[in-house]
C-alpha cells in the first residue's frame, strides 16, 4: 500500500510546506453595496418618547443639519461578515505562522485564555468614571501589575497609561523635560542622546518632545563604545534614551558606565525595554541605575498585536521622578484601591483615562501563569532559540550576522544578505516577498539600513525547534533560488493573496489615494 507520508519527507526531514494563502479577490466594500440593504437595525424609540420630544432634527441649528445621508455602503449583515472574514483569512496572524520573521516585534503566542478573560462583561462593560467602589477588580489588576513591573525592572513607580511603546517613550521624554524644567535647566538641556540601533521612536519621540537628537553609530562590536558616549555628553545633555540589547540583539556591556557618564553630566537615562524578552529575570533597569524605562505589554508580555494596536507602553521611573508621572496614579491603602489625581507636578494626561486596561489584564494573566521562574524561562528559551536560529541561518549561502563575529546574541539578530545581493542581484526585500510564498513573515529592519540588505529575525520562546528548522529551510530554499533561479524570486509572490504591488502611485500626490472616494475621483480624471 502506498505510503503518502513517505513523500512528505526527504532524508528524514519534512519537505517544504506547499502553501497558498487564501485569496478571495474581494471587491472594495463600496462595490458590494446594494441600495436599501441593512446590516443591523437600530432600536426604535418608544412612541411615547417620540411624541413627547417632537421633531428633534428641526431643533438642530439649520446650518448644522446634515443634508445628505453619508454615502456609506449598504449591505446585509451576512455580506458584511463574509467580507471581513474573508479579509481576515488574507491576513497572516501570529496564530497562523511561525512568526519569527518580524524581528524586534517579539511575536509570541498570545494565550487564548487571556482573550476569554478580557471579553468578560466585567472587563468590557465598565466605564472608566464609575465610582471606585464599583471597579475595585480592575483597579486591583492595574495596581498589581504595576507591582510586577516594579520587580521586573527594579524601578519604583509605574504608569500604565501610554497607549504603546512610542507613547511611553514620548512620556518619558516629557518627564525628562519636566525634570529639567523643575530645576530651571530646561533651556540649557535640550539634547537627547540615542543610538542608531535603538528603536526610531527614541529619536522621534524625544524630538517631538522638543529635544535635539544626537545619534551614535556602532563600531565593529555593534555598539558605540564608552568613549563615543563620553564625547557626546555635555552640559546640554538632557538625557539618554537607548534600547539595550539593541536591534542587533547585542547587549552593550558598557551600559552602566554610560549611565554614570550621563548622570554625572546632569542628564537622565531612559531605558527602552519595549522588548525585554531576552532579559526577563536576567538584568534590569535598576542595576545600571536607569531613571526611567518602559515595557511594551504587546511584546514581551504576550498581548496580541491587533494589526498594530491597541497596546500598552508601561512606563516606570525612580522614586525621584515619580511625581512627574501621568495622572491619575493608582493607590492602595491596604483595603481599597483608589485613583489619585492630586499630582501638581505631573506631566498630565498622556492617554485617555488609565490606558488600555484589557491589554494590561492580558499581560497580568500571562505573568500570573508563569511566575518568576516562568518569566526567566521565557528569557532563557527565547535566547536559546535565537542562538540556535543564528547557528542554522549562518549555514545558508549568502547571509551573515554583522558585528561581533562569532559572538552570541540575546533575543534577536540583524542579519545581512549583502553577499547574496552581490552574488545574485536579489535584495533582502525580495527574499522577504518570496518567503511569503511559504506562509511566513519576514522583515528587513528599520531605516536607515546601516546593516546592508538587512533581515531581522527574533524567534521568541514560542517556537519549537521544528518550527525554527522549518523557517531556516524556507530561507535556505529562497537563497538557493536566488542563486539558481533568481527570476522566481524576483517575480514573487506566487502563492500569496496578491501579486507584486506597484509602489510608485503611493508616493505621488496626483495618484495616491487613501480613501475610495479619493481614488474614484482620481481615476475619473
Amino acid at each position, binding site marked *: 500500500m502506498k505510503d503518502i507520508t513517505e513523500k512528505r519527507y526527504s532524508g528524514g526531514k519534512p519537505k517544504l510546506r506547499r502553501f497558498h494563502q487564501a485569496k478571495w479577490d474581494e471587491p472594495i*466594500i463600496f462595490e458590494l453595496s446594494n441600495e436599501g*440593504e441593512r446590516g*443591523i437595525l*437600530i432600536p426604535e*424609540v418608544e412612541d*411615547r*418618547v417620540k411624541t413627547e420630544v417632537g421633531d428633534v432634527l428641526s431643533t438642530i441649528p439649520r446650518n*448644522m443639519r*446634515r443634508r445628505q*445621508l*453619508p454615502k*456609506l455602503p449598504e449591505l446585509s*449583515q451576512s455580506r458584511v461578515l463574509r467580507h471581513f472574514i474573508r*479579509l481576515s483569512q*488574507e491576513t*497572516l496572524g501570529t496564530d497562523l505562522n511561525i512568526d519569527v520573521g*518580524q524581528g524586534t516585534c517579539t511575536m509570541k503566542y498570545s*494565550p487564548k*485564555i487571556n482573550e476569554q*478573560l478580557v471579553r468578560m462583561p*466585567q472587563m468590557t462593560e*465598565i*466605564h472608566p*468614571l464609575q465610582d471606585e467602589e464599583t471597579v475595585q477588580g*480592575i483597579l486591583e489588576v492595574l495596581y498589581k501589575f504595576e507591582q510586577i513591573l516594579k520587580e521586573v525592572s527594579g524601578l519604583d513607580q509605574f504608569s500604565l497609561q501610554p*497607549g504603546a511603546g512610542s507613547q511611553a517613550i514620548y512620556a518619558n521624554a516629557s518627564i525628562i523635560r519636566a525634570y529639567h524644567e523643575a530645576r530651571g535647566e530646561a533651556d540649557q538641556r535640550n539634547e537627547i542622546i540615542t543610538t542608531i540601533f535603538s528603536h*526610531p*521612536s527614541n529619536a522621534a519621540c524625544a524630538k*517631538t518632545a522638543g529635544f535635539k537628537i544626537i*545619534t551614535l553609530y556602532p563600531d565593529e562590536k555593534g555598539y558605540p563604545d564608552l568613549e563615543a558616549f563620553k564625547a557626546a555628553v555635555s552640559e546640554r545633555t538632557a538625557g539618554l534614551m537607548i534600547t539595550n540589547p539593541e536591534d542587533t540583539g547585542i547587549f552593550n556591556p558598557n551600559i552602566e558606565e554610560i549611565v554614570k557618564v550621563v548622570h554625572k553630566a546632569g542628564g537622565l537615562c531612559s531605558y527602552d525595554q519595549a522588548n525585554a524578552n531576552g532579559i526577563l529575570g536576567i*538584568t534590569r533597569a535598576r*542595576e545600571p541605575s536607569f531613571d526611567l524605562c518602559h515595557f511594551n505589554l504587546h511584546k514581551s508580555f504576550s498581548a496580541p498585536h491587533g494589526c498594530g*494596536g*491597541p*497596546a500598552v507602553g508601561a512606563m516606570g521611573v525612580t522614586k525621584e521622578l515619580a511625581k512627574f508621572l501621568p495622572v491619575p496614579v493608582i493607590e492602595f491603602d491596604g483595603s481599597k484601591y483608589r485613583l489619585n489625581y492630586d499630582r501638581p507636578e505631573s506631566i498630565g494626561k498622556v492617554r*485617555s*483615562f488609565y490606558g488600555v*486596561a*484589557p491589554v494590561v*489584564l492580558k499581560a497580568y494573566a500571562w505573568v500570573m*501563569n508563569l511566575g518568576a*521562574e*516562568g*518569566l526567566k524561562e521565557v528569557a532563557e528559551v527565547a535566547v536559546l532559540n*535565537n*542562538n*540556535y536560529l543564528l547557528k*542554522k541561518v549562518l549555514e545558508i549561502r549568502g547571509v551573515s550576522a554583522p558585528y561581533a563575529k562569532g559572538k552570541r546574541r540575546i533575543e534577536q539578530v540583524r542579519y545581512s544578505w549583502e553577499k547574496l545581493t552581490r552574488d545574485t542581484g536579489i535584495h533582502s526585500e525580495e527574499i522577504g516577498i518570496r518567503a511569503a510564498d511559504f506562509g511566513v513573515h519576514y522583515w528587513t529592519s528599520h531605516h536607515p539600513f546601516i546593516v546592508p540588505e538587512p533581515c531581522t529575525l527574533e524567534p521568541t520562546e*514560542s*517556537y*519549537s*525547534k521544528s*518550527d525554527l528548522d522549518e523557517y531556516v529551510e524556507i530561507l535556505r530554499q529562497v537563497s538557493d533560488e536566488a542563486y539558481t533561479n533568481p527570476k522566481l524570486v524576483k*517575480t514573487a509572490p506566487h502563492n500569496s493573496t*496578491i501579486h*507584486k*504591488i*506597484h509602489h510608485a502611485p503611493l*508616493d505621488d500626490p496626483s495618484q495616491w489615494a*487613501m480613501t475610495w472616494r479619493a481614488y474614484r475621483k482620481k481615476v475619473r480624471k
Partner: protein
Amino acid sequence: MSKEKPTVYSYIPNSVPKVKNQMLKAVGAKSVEDFFEDIPEKLRLKKKMNLPKPFLSEQSLRRHVEGILSKNKTCQEYLNFLGAGCWQHYVPAVCDEVNQRGEFLTAYAVEPYDDHGRFQALFEFASMMGELLNMDVVNVPTYDWLQAAATSIRMASRITGRHEAYVSRTISADKLSKLRDYCKPEIQVKLLDYDSETGQLDINSLKTGISSKTAAIYFENPSYLGFIEAYGDEISKIAHDHGAICIVGIDPISLGILIPPIDYGADIVCGDIQPLGMHMQFGGGHAGFIATRDEEKYVMEYPSRLFGIAPTSVEGEYGFGDVAYERTSFAVREEGKEFIGTATALWGITAGVYLALIGPQGMQEIGEGIMQRSRYAMSQISNIKGIKSPVFKSTHFKEFVVNFDGTGKTVAEINKALLRHKIFGGKDLTKEFPELGNSALYCVTEVHTKDDIDRLANALMEVVE
C-alpha cells in the same frame, strides 16, 4: 507535575529539558548562561524575582482572574449615564466576531503580501470614515481623541509655521492637559471663553485673540458639554481670514444627522471612534482619527500611517501600501513627523465593520434616536424640583449638563445615593467647571429605553427629596 521535574510550560515548547540540551549541543553552548556573557556580572539579577506564586494551570489562572474581575460592577448590572469621553453604545456582535478573529487579532505590521486583508480592511475603514466626514484623507487611527487633537494642532503649526493655538474652554480638562503637554515644545495653547447662557464658543473672545501668529483654532461639535456649536461657519471664517487652520473635534456617531465639519470650513477634523463598535473596557476602547483634504501640504504632515490603494502586476487586482512613508519616523527617525509606532489598528478595523453594518440609514436613525432619548431625559429630569437640565440653552446631542444647585446636595452625594439604586449618575463637573456649580454631565444613548430614563428620573426624585 511532581516537584522534582522541571516545569514544561505550555506556552514554551522548548522548555522540554531534552530539547534544550539538544539545542545547546547544536550551537556548542554549555548552558544558556553562555548567551548572556555580554551582560556584566554586576548587572545580572542574582535573586529570583519576587513575584506572586503563579497559577500554572489555565484552570486555576482563570479562577483567579475571574475572582478579581467579579469585584467589578458592570453597566449591564447598573444603569449607566456616564459619558464624558467614553460612551456606552451598542456593539453589534459582528464587530466582536471580526476583531476576535485570530488573524486580525495577532497580525502586526509588516509587508502587505502576507497581510493583504489587514491593509484592505484599514483602507476601507478610512474610506467609510471619509464618507461620514466628506473628506478624502483619513489616517490609520492613533491612540485616542486626545492624541488626535494634539497631533492635529501640531500639524497645523507645521503647516502654518505658527506657534499659537486657540482652544474652546468647553473641552475636557483631560484633553486640555494632553494638549498642553504635547504642544508645549512648539505651541502655546490659549483658551477661548464660552457664553455662559448657551455654552457657545465666544466669537468675540476669538476675534480679540486671533492674530497672524495663530496656527489653529480647535473646538468640538458637539462640545464636551453636549451641546451643538451653531457658529462653525463664522469660526472657520475668522480662522481662515487670519491664515489659521480650523480644527474640529467630533463624535462620529453624530454624523448621521450633523453636518460634516468640512462643510462649515474645517480643515482638519479629528475625534474618537470608540462609539463605532468598541466596548468601553474601562477606557480601553479608544482610537483617534484625523482627517483632512487630499492636499499634499496636509498629507505630508500626518505622523500616522496612511494606507493607499495601488495596482499589482495582475490586472484588476487591488494592492495596498503605505502612502508617503518617507514622512514617518519609521523611515527617517527624528526627521519624520512626530512619531509613529503601534497604534489602534484593530479598533480601526472594527469601526469599519460597524460603519459597514450600520449604513447611511442606520447612522441617521441612531443619531435621531439618541437626540430623542436625551431630550426626553433632559425634560424628565428637569421636572424634578431643584434640578436644572440642561444648563445651557442650546440644542444637545447625547450629553447634557444637569445642575443640582437647587437641591442642596452635592453631585458626589447624589451619585452615591444613585449607586444604591444601581445607577451610575453623570460625571461630576464641579472640579472641571466650578463656574457651573453643582453640575454633572449626563449621557444618554441608544442603549437607554424609556423605562431606563424613567427609572433615572424616579431615582433622582427620591434622592434629592
